[in-house]
């Protein structure tokens, strides 16, 4: 990696680490939460990039795996007292397994048929989530978290309370984001990454050189599922409760997708760039419209819709494909 890129990465990481500390001094934890959201959505965007950007299959269903991840960790905590980190491992395993089982059969569908199938899966998941007794159905699953007595314990149980919660969760989100980026980087330069892109470019041609598209499409989606499961665990413990209509919400699939498309689909840094632009837009709009008549009216999503249409019409490859962004791209 070129020296300039190393420096840029280092500076970026340093800024990300220092940012919330500066905020902490002012006492406005709200901005830390914004950072938390940016990194969650960026992380999920990188996750979406596996199936959407690299394998090239538009997927609306990752929110299903966010839900399975959140519920697995929550159940483990409720019934066995597991730490969320252990729960995250379980969540990832369970979600990948479910993903493999439900995805492999539909890999024969192409393009928008596959995309619709992922929406159909989500629509089937909704009544299941609302009525399944194991997860308490629509009544929701509450995570019994007592505030930790020491910092070390808090790191283990994610049990921060009060003023340090926003700060701590920011760092956890940042950590997960960094880990996800590392995963993406490794996959990018691996057989998986090559095969994903081959399938995206020309599925039939890929099969002719020995690539089983069913296996690799499923693998891509399972990687997406793993990332979303981890994100689900983080969200669940932050919210201290898991409700089906909150975790199975389509926004969890769509917003990371939008971030990635805006930033540059299939590019490593696309999701972060997109999230950094879009999340603050949403927060600014909430802040300025506040409690007025237009509050909660989805105005930010209207803006997102316009942005996405503009990207599709004028720059489908996203911001990172613009000429001036060359410095930020990998080769």
């Amino acid at each position, binding site marked *: 990696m070129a020296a300039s890129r190393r420096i840029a990465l280092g500076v970026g990481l340093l800024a990300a680490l220092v940012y919330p500390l500066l905020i902490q001094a002012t006492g406005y934890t709200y901005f830390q939460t914004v950072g938390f959201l940016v990194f969650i959505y960026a992380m999920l965007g990188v996750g979406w990039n596996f199936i959407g950007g690299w394998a090239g299959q538009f997927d609306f269903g990752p929110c299903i795996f966010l839900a399975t991840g959140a519920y697995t960790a929550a159940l483990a905590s409720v019934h066995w007292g597991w730490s969320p980190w252990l729960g995250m491992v379980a969540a990832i395993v369970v979600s990948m397994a479910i993903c493999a089982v439900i995805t492999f059969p539909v890999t024969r569908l192409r393009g*928008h048929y596959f995309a619709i199938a992922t929406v159909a899966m989500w629509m089937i998941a909704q*009544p299941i989530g609302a009525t399944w007794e194991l997860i308490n159905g629509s009544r929701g699953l509450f995570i019994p978290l007592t505030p930790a007595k020491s910092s070390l314990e808090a790191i283990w149980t994610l049990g921060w309370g009060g003023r340090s919660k926003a700060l701590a969760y920011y760092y956890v989100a940042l950590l997960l984001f960094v880990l996800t980026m590392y995963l993406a980087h490794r996959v990018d330069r691996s057989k998986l990454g090559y095969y994903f892109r081959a399938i995206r470019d020309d599925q039939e041609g890929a099969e002719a050189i020995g690539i089983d598209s069913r296996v690799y499409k499923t693998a891509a989606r399972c990687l997406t599922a793993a990332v979303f499961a981890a994100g689900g665990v983080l969200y669940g413990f932050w919210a201290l409760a898991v409700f089906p209509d909150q975790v199975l919400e389509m926004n969890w699939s769509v917003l990371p997708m939008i971030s990635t498309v805006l930033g540059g*689909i299939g590019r490593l840094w696309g999701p972060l760039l997109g999230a950094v632009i879009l999340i603050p837009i949403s927060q600014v709009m909430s802040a300025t419209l506040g409690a007025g008549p237009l509050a909660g*009216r989805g105005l930010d999503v*209207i803006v997102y*819709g316009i942005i*996405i*249409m503009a990207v599709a019409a004028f720059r489908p490859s996203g911001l990172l494909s613009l000429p001036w962004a060359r410095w930020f791209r990998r080769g």
Partner: protein
Amino acid sequence: MTELAQAVVNGLQMGLLYALVAVGLAIIWGLMEMVNFAHGEFMMLGMFGAWWLSSTLGWDPLVAMLPVALAIYGLGVLTYSQLMRRVQRGDAFAQIFATVGLLLFLQNGVVALFTSDYRFVSDTVLSRLSGVQLSILGIKLGVPLLMAGLLALALFVALYLLVDRTEFGLALQATSEDRDAAMLVGIRPQKMFAVAWGLGAALVGIAGVILANFFSVYPQVGLSFTVLAYAIVALGGFGSILGTLCAALLVGVVQSVTVVYLPPAFKDAFVFGSYLLIGLFRPQGLFGRF
């Protein structure tokens, strides 16, 4: 047994309405090979148009059909000329997220204007007939739904004739098959596509107006109808009008029968499960060529 038969008959009637929802997707977008994830949103706009005209001007949905259809036709043309035209030649991918953006814009635009509250169109001509029932062989046919179904069928047939028998329809088919050849005989593809989008949108918008007589009106109703339309079209095969009608009737019956045996929450789940099964075993649908 009669409960089952009743469910089947109800399902057939709903199926006629679903056919109207799906046919825009099957013919227009099937012919142009373009994706439209905002299909259900045009329907939702039709529903809202009916509701708004009813609540502010007191117009009955039957009357509202024409102005709403015209307005949504215009929206369809606008969508093509400003947005879809630019993504048509590129990746199918770009078409997907272009229409996803449109979905977000339309759905949340309506939320901004009207909130997410559920609304109802009340005291319509059709609903005034709701006391009236035909009874055939012990099976009750509610007149409102029957009338709506027949209306949908009439529009469906009209569309079929338009596409299959008129010069315009032939020009549209020609353009979809070979754009350059069509240009050589004087057809302007851009204009064709714009009109086709307008028609497709208007049709599903009219379906929305009709459905507003029976269903609650809220901004998020679109997506499940988009999936429903895709499921129907996938079952019936893209481009096959007859297939769409049969598939829609089938879907209506499946949905209706499901409710007899399963909790109502699973009504749609069963239909979507069928879509997945079809994708597994017969991707070209029951009638179509993939």
